[in-house]
Protein backbone atom coordinates (compact mmCIF):
# COMPACT_ATOMS: atom_id res chain seq x y z
CA UNK A 1 0.00 0.00 0.00
CA UNK A 2 1.36 3.40 -0.96
CA UNK A 3 -0.13 6.26 0.96
CA UNK A 4 -0.51 9.55 -0.93
CA UNK A 5 2.75 11.47 -1.09
CA UNK A 6 1.54 14.10 1.39
CA UNK A 7 1.02 11.62 4.24
CA UNK A 8 3.96 10.66 6.42
CA UNK A 9 4.98 7.03 6.16
CA UNK A 10 4.50 4.88 9.23
CA UNK A 11 5.69 1.29 9.24
CA UNK A 12 2.75 -1.16 8.96
CA UNK A 13 3.98 -3.09 11.99
CA UNK A 14 4.60 0.00 14.17
CA UNK A 15 2.64 -0.29 17.40
CA UNK A 16 1.74 3.25 18.44
CA UNK A 17 1.16 3.92 22.10
CA UNK A 18 0.67 6.83 24.46
CA UNK A 19 3.79 7.36 26.56
CA UNK A 20 3.65 7.61 30.34
CA UNK A 21 2.24 11.03 31.21
CA UNK A 22 -0.19 11.22 28.26
CA UNK A 23 -3.81 10.20 28.85
CA UNK A 24 -7.01 10.33 26.80
CA UNK A 25 -9.99 11.12 29.03
CA UNK A 26 -13.63 12.02 28.56
CA UNK A 27 -14.70 15.15 30.39
CA UNK A 28 -18.29 16.39 30.41
CA UNK A 29 -17.45 19.90 31.62
CA UNK A 30 -14.99 20.37 28.76
CA UNK A 31 -17.41 18.93 26.24
CA UNK A 32 -15.84 15.67 25.16
CA UNK A 33 -12.59 13.84 24.69
CA UNK A 34 -9.36 15.50 25.74
CA UNK A 35 -5.77 14.35 25.55
CA UNK A 36 -3.90 15.29 28.72
CA UNK A 37 -0.16 15.79 28.40
CA UNK A 38 2.56 17.60 30.30
CA UNK A 39 1.06 21.04 30.96
CA UNK A 40 -0.96 20.80 27.81
CA UNK A 41 -4.52 19.89 26.98
CA UNK A 42 -5.66 18.97 23.49
CA UNK A 43 -9.29 18.66 22.53
CA UNK A 44 -9.83 15.49 20.55
CA UNK A 45 -12.66 15.40 18.02
CA UNK A 46 -14.60 12.10 18.04
CA UNK A 47 -12.61 10.67 15.11
CA UNK A 48 -9.24 11.54 16.64
CA UNK A 49 -10.42 9.98 19.90
CA UNK A 50 -11.34 6.75 18.05
CA UNK A 51 -7.82 6.64 16.60
CA UNK A 52 -6.02 7.40 19.84
CA UNK A 53 -8.11 4.85 21.78
CA UNK A 54 -6.63 2.18 19.52
CA UNK A 55 -3.03 3.25 20.21
CA UNK A 56 -2.50 0.75 22.98
CA UNK A 57 0.97 -0.48 22.02
CA UNK A 58 -0.60 -3.80 21.07
CA UNK A 59 -2.35 -3.12 17.78
CA UNK A 60 -0.15 -2.48 14.74
CA UNK A 61 -0.64 0.56 12.53
CA UNK A 62 -1.96 -1.77 9.83
CA UNK A 63 -4.46 -3.36 12.19
CA UNK A 64 -5.61 0.03 13.47
CA UNK A 65 -6.24 1.24 9.91
CA UNK A 66 -8.09 -1.98 9.02
CA UNK A 67 -10.24 -1.67 12.10
CA UNK A 68 -11.07 2.01 11.48
CA UNK A 69 -11.80 1.46 7.79
CA UNK A 70 -14.18 -1.35 8.70
CA UNK A 71 -15.80 0.44 11.65
CA UNK A 72 -16.48 3.62 9.70
CA UNK A 73 -16.94 2.07 6.23
CA UNK A 74 -14.30 4.37 4.75
CA UNK A 75 -11.80 3.73 1.94
CA UNK A 76 -8.73 2.09 3.48
CA UNK A 77 -6.21 4.19 1.60
CA UNK A 78 -7.74 7.42 2.77
CA UNK A 79 -8.01 6.19 6.36
CA UNK A 80 -4.36 5.15 6.26
CA UNK A 81 -3.28 8.60 5.07
CA UNK A 82 -5.42 10.44 7.64
CA UNK A 83 -4.31 8.25 10.51
CA UNK A 84 -0.65 8.53 9.53
CA UNK A 85 -0.92 12.32 9.46
CA UNK A 86 -2.59 12.41 12.85
CA UNK A 87 -0.15 9.98 14.49
CA UNK A 88 2.94 11.64 13.07
CA UNK A 89 1.66 15.01 14.28
CA UNK A 90 1.20 13.59 17.77
CA UNK A 91 4.62 11.94 17.70
CA UNK A 92 6.23 15.25 16.69
CA UNK A 93 4.68 16.77 19.82
CA UNK A 94 5.95 13.87 21.94
CA UNK A 95 2.37 12.80 22.64
CA UNK A 96 2.74 9.38 21.02
CA UNK A 97 5.41 6.71 20.62
CA UNK A 98 5.63 5.02 17.24
Amino acid at each position, binding site marked *: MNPPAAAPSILPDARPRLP*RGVRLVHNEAQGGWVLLAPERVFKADPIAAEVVKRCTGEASFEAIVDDLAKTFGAPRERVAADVATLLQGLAD*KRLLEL
Partner: protein
Amino acid sequence: MTTEGRPNGNGGAGKPLHNPLGLLAELTHRCPLGCPYCSNPLEMDKRQSELDTATWARVFREAAGLGVLQVHLSGGEPASRRDLAGIMAAAREAGLYTNLITSGVGITDNRLNELADAGLDHVQISIQDSEQESADRIAGYEGAYVRKRALAAAVVALKLPLTVNIVIHRANIGRIDELVAMALDMGASRVEIAHVQYYGWALKNRASLMPTREQVVQAVGRIEPLRKQHRGRIVIDAVVPDYYARFPKPCVGGWGRRSLNVTPAGRVLPCHAAELIPGLEFWSVKSHSLREIWEQNPAFNAFRGTDFLPEPCRSCERREVDFGGCRCQAFALTGDARATDPVCHLSPHHHVVEEQAANRGDAGYIYRRL
Protein backbone atom coordinates in the same frame (compact mmCIF):
# COMPACT_ATOMS: atom_id res chain seq x y z
CA MET B 1 -6.79 17.22 17.79
CA THR B 2 -4.16 19.86 17.45
CA THR B 3 -6.30 22.66 18.82
CA GLU B 4 -5.09 23.52 22.25
CA GLY B 5 -7.96 23.21 24.68
CA ARG B 6 -9.93 26.40 24.78
CA PRO B 7 -13.53 26.23 25.82
CA ASN B 8 -15.92 27.84 23.39
CA GLY B 9 -17.72 31.10 23.88
CA ASN B 10 -16.59 34.30 25.49
CA GLY B 11 -16.73 35.28 29.10
CA GLY B 12 -18.14 38.77 28.62
CA ALA B 13 -20.93 40.16 30.78
CA GLY B 14 -24.11 38.11 30.52
CA LYS B 15 -22.39 35.37 28.56
CA PRO B 16 -21.86 31.85 29.90
CA LEU B 17 -18.75 31.38 31.99
CA HIS B 18 -15.83 29.30 30.84
CA ASN B 19 -14.77 26.26 32.75
CA PRO B 20 -11.25 26.58 34.09
CA LEU B 21 -8.76 24.05 32.68
CA GLY B 22 -5.87 24.42 35.07
CA LEU B 23 -5.33 24.94 38.79
CA LEU B 24 -2.04 26.27 40.11
CA ALA B 25 -1.75 24.92 43.64
CA GLU B 26 0.91 26.84 45.52
CA LEU B 27 1.38 24.37 48.33
CA THR B 28 3.93 26.46 50.22
CA HIS B 29 6.08 29.54 49.81
CA ARG B 30 9.02 27.80 51.50
CA CYS B 31 11.88 27.13 49.06
CA PRO B 32 15.59 26.38 49.42
CA LEU B 33 16.44 28.53 46.39
CA GLY B 34 16.57 32.31 46.24
CA CYS B 35 16.01 33.02 42.52
CA PRO B 36 15.82 36.78 42.01
CA TYR B 37 13.01 36.43 39.45
CA CYS B 38 10.73 34.35 41.67
CA SER B 39 7.07 34.81 40.80
CA ASN B 40 6.00 34.57 44.43
CA PRO B 41 4.75 37.79 46.00
CA LEU B 42 7.07 39.85 48.18
CA GLU B 43 4.68 39.19 51.09
CA MET B 44 4.68 35.43 51.42
CA ASP B 45 2.43 33.07 53.35
CA LYS B 46 4.00 31.64 56.50
CA ARG B 47 4.21 27.94 57.20
CA GLN B 48 1.64 28.13 60.01
CA SER B 49 -0.97 29.48 57.58
CA GLU B 50 -0.61 26.67 55.00
CA LEU B 51 -3.68 24.61 54.09
CA ASP B 52 -3.70 21.06 55.40
CA THR B 53 -3.85 17.87 53.29
CA ALA B 54 -7.60 17.37 53.73
CA THR B 55 -8.38 20.90 52.57
CA TRP B 56 -6.25 20.47 49.45
CA ALA B 57 -8.07 17.18 48.76
CA ARG B 58 -11.41 19.01 48.93
CA VAL B 59 -10.09 21.81 46.70
CA PHE B 60 -9.04 19.24 44.08
CA ARG B 61 -12.45 17.56 44.12
CA GLU B 62 -14.13 20.94 43.72
CA ALA B 63 -11.72 21.86 40.93
CA ALA B 64 -12.48 18.65 39.02
CA GLY B 65 -16.19 19.40 39.45
CA LEU B 66 -15.61 22.78 37.81
CA GLY B 67 -13.96 21.13 34.79
CA VAL B 68 -10.33 21.56 35.79
CA LEU B 69 -8.22 18.90 34.06
CA GLN B 70 -4.72 19.63 35.31
CA VAL B 71 -3.22 20.64 38.60
CA HIS B 72 0.20 22.23 38.86
CA LEU B 73 1.64 21.41 42.26
CA SER B 74 3.97 24.28 42.85
CA GLY B 75 5.24 26.73 45.45
CA GLY B 76 7.83 27.67 46.66
CA GLU B 77 9.23 24.21 46.59
CA PRO B 78 6.30 21.78 46.90
CA ALA B 79 8.59 19.11 48.38
CA SER B 80 9.04 21.39 51.40
CA ARG B 81 5.73 19.83 52.45
CA ARG B 82 6.09 16.46 54.09
CA ASP B 83 2.58 15.49 52.98
CA LEU B 84 3.31 16.07 49.27
CA ALA B 85 2.67 12.42 48.33
CA GLY B 86 -0.68 12.53 50.13
CA ILE B 87 -1.59 15.76 48.32
CA MET B 88 -0.52 14.18 45.02
CA ALA B 89 -2.63 11.10 45.64
CA ALA B 90 -5.65 13.28 46.44
CA ALA B 91 -5.24 15.15 43.16
CA ARG B 92 -5.14 11.91 41.18
CA GLU B 93 -8.08 10.54 43.11
CA ALA B 94 -10.03 13.62 42.05
CA GLY B 95 -9.19 12.69 38.44
CA LEU B 96 -6.69 15.48 37.82
CA TYR B 97 -3.52 15.30 35.75
CA THR B 98 -0.66 16.10 38.11
CA ASN B 99 2.28 18.30 37.20
CA LEU B 100 4.98 18.64 39.84
CA ILE B 101 6.75 21.99 39.48
CA THR B 102 9.96 21.63 41.45
CA SER B 103 13.28 23.33 42.06
CA GLY B 104 14.77 19.84 42.00
CA VAL B 105 16.39 20.40 45.37
CA GLY B 106 15.18 18.28 48.27
CA ILE B 107 13.57 15.29 46.53
CA THR B 108 15.42 12.05 47.26
CA ASP B 109 15.06 8.97 45.04
CA ASN B 110 12.86 7.38 47.69
CA ARG B 111 10.63 10.41 47.77
CA LEU B 112 10.38 10.44 43.98
CA ASN B 113 9.34 6.78 43.97
CA GLU B 114 6.72 7.56 46.58
CA LEU B 115 5.37 10.40 44.42
CA ALA B 116 5.36 8.23 41.29
CA ASP B 117 3.37 5.60 43.19
CA ALA B 118 0.96 8.30 44.34
CA GLY B 119 0.13 9.09 40.71
CA LEU B 120 2.61 11.70 39.56
CA ASP B 121 2.05 12.32 35.84
CA HIS B 122 4.77 14.79 34.90
CA VAL B 123 7.73 16.58 36.44
CA GLN B 124 8.96 20.05 35.63
CA ILE B 125 12.39 20.96 36.96
CA SER B 126 13.68 24.49 36.79
CA ILE B 127 17.35 24.98 36.04
CA GLN B 128 19.05 28.33 36.05
CA ASP B 129 21.78 27.99 33.43
CA SER B 130 23.77 25.44 31.41
CA GLU B 131 26.93 26.43 33.26
CA GLN B 132 27.14 25.11 36.78
CA GLU B 133 28.72 28.11 38.47
CA SER B 134 26.35 30.59 36.87
CA ALA B 135 23.36 28.34 37.59
CA ASP B 136 24.20 28.14 41.31
CA ARG B 137 24.84 31.87 41.53
CA ILE B 138 21.45 32.70 39.99
CA ALA B 139 19.70 30.21 42.29
CA GLY B 140 21.56 31.55 45.30
CA TYR B 141 22.31 27.96 46.30
CA GLU B 142 25.61 26.18 45.93
CA GLY B 143 25.24 22.67 44.55
CA ALA B 144 21.78 23.31 43.11
CA TYR B 145 22.80 22.50 39.52
CA VAL B 146 24.21 19.07 40.38
CA ARG B 147 21.18 18.15 42.50
CA LYS B 148 18.77 19.22 39.78
CA ARG B 149 20.54 17.11 37.18
CA ALA B 150 20.50 14.12 39.52
CA LEU B 151 16.75 14.42 40.07
CA ALA B 152 16.21 14.78 36.31
CA ALA B 153 18.10 11.53 35.76
CA ALA B 154 15.95 9.77 38.36
CA VAL B 155 12.75 11.09 36.73
CA VAL B 156 13.84 9.87 33.31
CA ALA B 157 14.84 6.48 34.74
CA LEU B 158 11.24 6.08 35.94
CA LYS B 159 10.10 6.92 32.38
CA LEU B 160 8.15 9.89 33.69
CA PRO B 161 7.91 12.78 31.23
CA LEU B 162 10.27 15.61 32.11
CA THR B 163 10.04 19.31 31.31
CA VAL B 164 13.04 21.52 31.91
CA ASN B 165 12.10 25.11 32.66
CA ILE B 166 14.70 27.78 32.09
CA VAL B 167 13.98 31.38 32.97
CA ILE B 168 15.85 33.62 30.57
CA HIS B 169 17.43 36.95 31.53
CA ARG B 170 20.63 38.90 30.98
CA ALA B 171 22.95 36.35 32.63
CA ASN B 172 21.97 33.39 30.41
CA ILE B 173 20.26 34.86 27.33
CA GLY B 174 23.31 34.30 25.14
CA ARG B 175 23.13 30.52 25.61
CA ILE B 176 19.77 29.47 24.13
CA ASP B 177 21.37 26.70 22.01
CA GLU B 178 23.35 25.39 24.98
CA LEU B 179 20.29 25.47 27.22
CA VAL B 180 18.22 23.43 24.77
CA ALA B 181 21.14 21.02 24.35
CA MET B 182 21.29 20.66 28.13
CA ALA B 183 17.56 19.88 28.30
CA LEU B 184 18.03 17.20 25.62
CA ASP B 185 20.99 15.79 27.51
CA MET B 186 18.87 15.64 30.67
CA GLY B 187 16.31 13.53 28.79
CA ALA B 188 13.53 16.13 28.74
CA SER B 189 10.69 15.74 26.25
CA ARG B 190 9.81 19.40 26.66
CA VAL B 191 11.73 22.58 27.46
CA GLU B 192 10.35 25.96 28.40
CA ILE B 193 12.44 28.92 27.32
CA ALA B 194 10.71 31.42 29.55
CA HIS B 195 11.85 35.01 29.42
CA VAL B 196 11.43 36.71 32.79
CA GLN B 197 8.03 38.19 33.45
CA TYR B 198 8.39 41.22 35.69
CA TYR B 199 6.20 40.64 38.74
CA GLY B 200 7.01 39.97 42.38
CA TRP B 201 10.71 39.49 42.95
CA ALA B 202 11.51 39.89 39.25
CA LEU B 203 10.04 43.39 39.30
CA LYS B 204 12.27 44.20 42.25
CA ASN B 205 15.31 42.89 40.33
CA ARG B 206 14.28 44.21 36.93
CA ALA B 207 17.37 46.35 36.29
CA SER B 208 19.70 43.41 37.05
CA LEU B 209 17.73 40.95 34.91
CA MET B 210 16.77 43.02 31.87
CA PRO B 211 18.54 42.06 28.64
CA THR B 212 19.16 44.42 25.73
CA ARG B 213 16.96 44.49 22.65
CA GLU B 214 19.79 43.01 20.57
CA GLN B 215 20.13 40.08 22.99
CA VAL B 216 16.38 39.48 22.88
CA VAL B 217 16.20 39.58 19.09
CA GLN B 218 19.09 37.13 18.87
CA ALA B 219 17.57 34.77 21.48
CA VAL B 220 14.06 34.80 20.03
CA GLY B 221 15.50 34.14 16.57
CA ARG B 222 17.01 30.85 17.77
CA ILE B 223 13.68 29.25 18.71
CA GLU B 224 12.36 28.30 15.27
CA PRO B 225 15.67 26.86 13.97
CA LEU B 226 16.01 24.83 17.19
CA ARG B 227 12.43 23.58 16.89
CA LYS B 228 13.10 22.41 13.33
CA GLN B 229 16.40 20.83 14.29
CA HIS B 230 14.91 18.84 17.20
CA ARG B 231 11.41 18.08 15.90
CA GLY B 232 10.11 14.84 17.38
CA ARG B 233 12.82 14.80 20.07
CA ILE B 234 11.90 17.74 22.24
CA VAL B 235 9.06 20.25 22.32
CA ILE B 236 10.30 23.82 22.74
CA ASP B 237 7.79 26.18 24.33
CA ALA B 238 8.72 29.84 24.52
CA VAL B 239 7.43 32.57 26.81
CA VAL B 240 8.08 35.86 25.04
CA PRO B 241 10.05 38.72 26.58
CA ASP B 242 7.12 41.09 26.74
CA TYR B 243 8.97 44.34 27.44
CA TYR B 244 10.27 44.08 23.88
CA ALA B 245 7.04 42.83 22.30
CA ARG B 246 4.70 44.83 20.07
CA PHE B 247 1.55 43.31 21.52
CA PRO B 248 0.81 42.11 25.07
CA LYS B 249 0.39 38.48 26.09
CA PRO B 250 -3.10 37.19 26.87
CA CYS B 251 -2.17 36.77 30.48
CA VAL B 252 -3.32 33.41 31.93
CA GLY B 253 -5.53 33.14 28.85
CA GLY B 254 -7.75 35.96 30.14
CA TRP B 255 -8.72 36.96 33.68
CA GLY B 256 -10.96 34.32 35.30
CA ARG B 257 -11.23 32.46 32.03
CA ARG B 258 -9.03 29.38 31.89
CA SER B 259 -7.16 29.00 35.15
CA LEU B 260 -7.07 29.75 38.83
CA ASN B 261 -4.48 29.84 41.54
CA VAL B 262 -4.74 28.83 45.18
CA THR B 263 -2.14 30.36 47.53
CA PRO B 264 -0.53 28.36 50.36
CA ALA B 265 -2.98 29.93 52.82
CA GLY B 266 -6.00 29.23 50.59
CA ARG B 267 -6.78 32.52 48.87
CA VAL B 268 -8.02 31.96 45.33
CA LEU B 269 -6.63 34.21 42.61
CA PRO B 270 -7.12 34.49 38.84
CA CYS B 271 -3.32 34.52 38.55
CA HIS B 272 -0.37 34.31 40.91
CA ALA B 273 0.38 38.04 40.79
CA ALA B 274 -3.20 39.28 41.25
CA GLU B 275 -2.77 40.31 44.86
CA LEU B 276 -0.64 43.26 43.85
CA ILE B 277 -3.77 44.95 42.48
CA PRO B 278 -5.34 46.98 45.31
CA GLY B 279 -9.04 47.03 46.02
CA LEU B 280 -9.75 43.42 45.11
CA GLU B 281 -10.96 41.09 47.84
CA PHE B 282 -9.92 37.50 47.18
CA TRP B 283 -12.03 34.83 48.84
CA SER B 284 -10.52 31.81 50.58
CA VAL B 285 -11.25 28.12 50.11
CA LYS B 286 -11.70 28.06 53.88
CA SER B 287 -14.92 30.05 53.63
CA HIS B 288 -16.18 29.39 50.07
CA SER B 289 -16.32 26.54 47.59
CA LEU B 290 -14.21 26.88 44.47
CA ARG B 291 -17.38 27.14 42.37
CA GLU B 292 -18.72 30.01 44.48
CA ILE B 293 -15.42 31.78 44.07
CA TRP B 294 -15.16 31.15 40.33
CA GLU B 295 -18.73 32.27 39.69
CA GLN B 296 -19.38 34.91 42.34
CA ASN B 297 -16.22 36.46 43.76
CA PRO B 298 -16.33 40.07 42.52
CA ALA B 299 -12.55 39.97 42.13
CA PHE B 300 -12.94 37.23 39.50
CA ASN B 301 -15.56 39.24 37.67
CA ALA B 302 -13.60 42.49 37.86
CA PHE B 303 -11.76 42.01 34.56
CA ARG B 304 -13.64 39.18 32.92
CA GLY B 305 -14.25 39.48 29.20
CA THR B 306 -13.43 42.74 27.44
CA ASP B 307 -16.23 45.14 28.40
CA PHE B 308 -14.09 46.91 31.00
CA LEU B 309 -11.38 47.82 28.50
CA PRO B 310 -10.74 51.43 27.49
CA GLU B 311 -9.43 52.57 24.12
CA PRO B 312 -7.28 51.67 22.25
CA CYS B 313 -8.40 48.12 23.21
CA ARG B 314 -12.15 48.75 22.97
CA SER B 315 -12.10 49.07 19.19
CA CYS B 316 -9.06 46.88 18.60
CA GLU B 317 -9.44 43.74 16.49
CA ARG B 318 -7.08 41.90 18.88
CA ARG B 319 -9.22 42.47 21.98
CA GLU B 320 -10.52 38.88 21.97
CA VAL B 321 -6.97 37.62 21.32
CA ASP B 322 -5.10 39.23 24.18
CA PHE B 323 -7.91 40.78 26.33
CA GLY B 324 -5.87 43.96 26.57
CA GLY B 325 -2.95 42.06 28.08
CA CYS B 326 -2.07 41.59 31.71
CA ARG B 327 -4.04 43.40 34.45
CA CYS B 328 -1.20 43.11 36.97
CA GLN B 329 1.28 44.61 34.55
CA ALA B 330 -1.15 47.38 33.63
CA PHE B 331 -1.41 48.24 37.33
CA ALA B 332 2.30 47.85 38.07
CA LEU B 333 3.34 50.16 35.26
CA THR B 334 0.45 52.64 34.92
CA GLY B 335 -1.25 52.56 38.34
CA ASP B 336 -4.54 51.59 36.66
CA ALA B 337 -5.47 47.90 36.47
CA ARG B 338 -8.08 48.62 33.76
CA ALA B 339 -5.62 50.27 31.41
CA THR B 340 -4.26 48.72 28.23
CA ASP B 341 -1.20 46.68 29.14
CA PRO B 342 1.56 49.21 28.37
CA VAL B 343 3.57 46.46 26.65
CA CYS B 344 1.26 47.13 23.69
CA HIS B 345 2.83 49.61 21.29
CA LEU B 346 -0.61 51.23 20.95
CA SER B 347 -0.82 52.02 24.68
CA PRO B 348 -0.48 55.70 25.58
CA HIS B 349 1.83 54.50 28.39
CA HIS B 350 4.11 52.40 26.18
CA HIS B 351 7.01 54.80 26.81
CA VAL B 352 7.12 53.52 30.43
CA VAL B 353 7.99 50.03 29.17
CA GLU B 354 10.64 51.42 26.83
CA GLU B 355 12.16 53.46 29.65
CA GLN B 356 12.22 50.50 32.03
CA ALA B 357 13.75 48.22 29.38
CA ALA B 358 16.53 50.76 28.98
CA ASN B 359 16.97 51.06 32.76
CA ARG B 360 19.58 48.35 33.22
CA GLY B 361 22.05 48.17 36.05
CA ASP B 362 24.42 45.84 37.85
CA ALA B 363 23.45 46.47 41.45
CA GLY B 364 23.46 42.69 42.09
CA TYR B 365 20.51 40.43 42.79
CA ILE B 366 18.16 40.83 45.69
CA TYR B 367 17.58 37.15 46.43
CA ARG B 368 14.10 35.94 47.27
CA ARG B 369 13.88 34.95 50.91
CA LEU B 370 10.88 34.02 52.99
